[in-house]
């Protein structure tokens, strides 16, 4: 009986150990590659974007962001090489204003320099641009609000109806 309990405990420990290893290994594997954040995530043509790159290699001393703007299946414009500025030990950032009004997507490649030399990441990663024809700054909020207004109105109606029903009773 005791040996059975003991075997069960050992089995549980082994299982937990494997689960933990399985949980943490992907985190270690993924964190080796830099992460790229583009703000806004879906920019409009001719909009300014902010690029933030988080690196994990402590020997990183330069990060370049290569970007091309393309117009559908028609053509791509000259590649631009943006040198990102070091913000802290791990983060590099920079900004860029998209140039071409007819661009429909952009694609980028990350170049990171460490003691091992230059390494490319995310080669030719495509980012579709927002081609919706919205007006100036405030109008986007106007487009979003009707949805929220309807929710508030609906809840108000429900609560008022419940209140009135209870009062009648």
């Amino acid at each position: 009986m005791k040996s059975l309990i003991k075997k069960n405990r050992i089995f549980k420990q082994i299982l937990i150990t494997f689960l933990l290893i399985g949980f943490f290994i992907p985190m270690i594997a993924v964190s080796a590659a830099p992460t790229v954040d583009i703000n806004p995530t879906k920019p409009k043509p001719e909009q300014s974007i902010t690029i933030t790159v988080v690196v994990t290699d402590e020997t990183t001393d330069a990060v370049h962001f290569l970007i091309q703007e393309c117009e559908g299946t028609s053509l791509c414009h000259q590649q631009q090489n943006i040198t990102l500025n070091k913000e802290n030990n791990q983060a590099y950032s920079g900004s860029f204003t998209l140039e071409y009004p007819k661009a429909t997507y952009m694609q980028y490649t990350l170049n990171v320099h460490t003691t091992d030399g230059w390494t490319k990441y995310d080669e030719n990663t495509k980012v579709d641009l927002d081609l919706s024809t919205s007006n100036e700054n405030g109008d986007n909020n106007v487009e979003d609000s009707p949805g929220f207004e309807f929710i508030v109105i609906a809840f108000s109606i429900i609560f008022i109806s419940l209140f009135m029903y209870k009062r009648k009773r």
Partner: protein
Amino acid sequence: MKKKILPIILIIVIIITGILSGCTTTNQNNSTNGTNGENFLFELPDSTEVELKEYRGKIVILDMWATWCSPCQYQMIELKKAYDTYSREDLEILSINVDPDETNQDILNFIELFSEHGYNLNWIFGNEIDDTAKYKKELNSGIPSICIFDRDGEILYKHVGVMLYDTFPDNWTGEKVLLKEKIDEYIN
């Protein structure tokens, strides 16, 4: 005295006339041989340097591209149609990579990738050395860009963006000029 001077003057006149006629003949020869046409230098994947003027006597399509350019890949398929249609005596295609960061190996990898998908890009590929950039700048830095040269190296046509060979797809929003029409016009 006069008798001595006259022959000397005559000899000088003959010499000057000979020099002037020689210059005139030289100019005529230049225009006949087409050495007034365009020229630029590029490098083949095996690092051999080649010039445009080596292709005098043929219609030459200069295709400016880069491996990262998706429309340029589309253009390759259209160029393949042209290359398979016309004889090598009439037409040559030069696909010159205009990205200074790309190497000969990048070009070879690109060709290999197309080969794996059933497209044999069997025309001339190279890396830009000089002067192709001037055509790229004239064409607003967009690629793919096409320049067509006549048999004497004179530039006939320039186009920015993909140039289809003989058919427009239904959803085509680009310029409606076909490569086949241009080639036929210039070859004939």
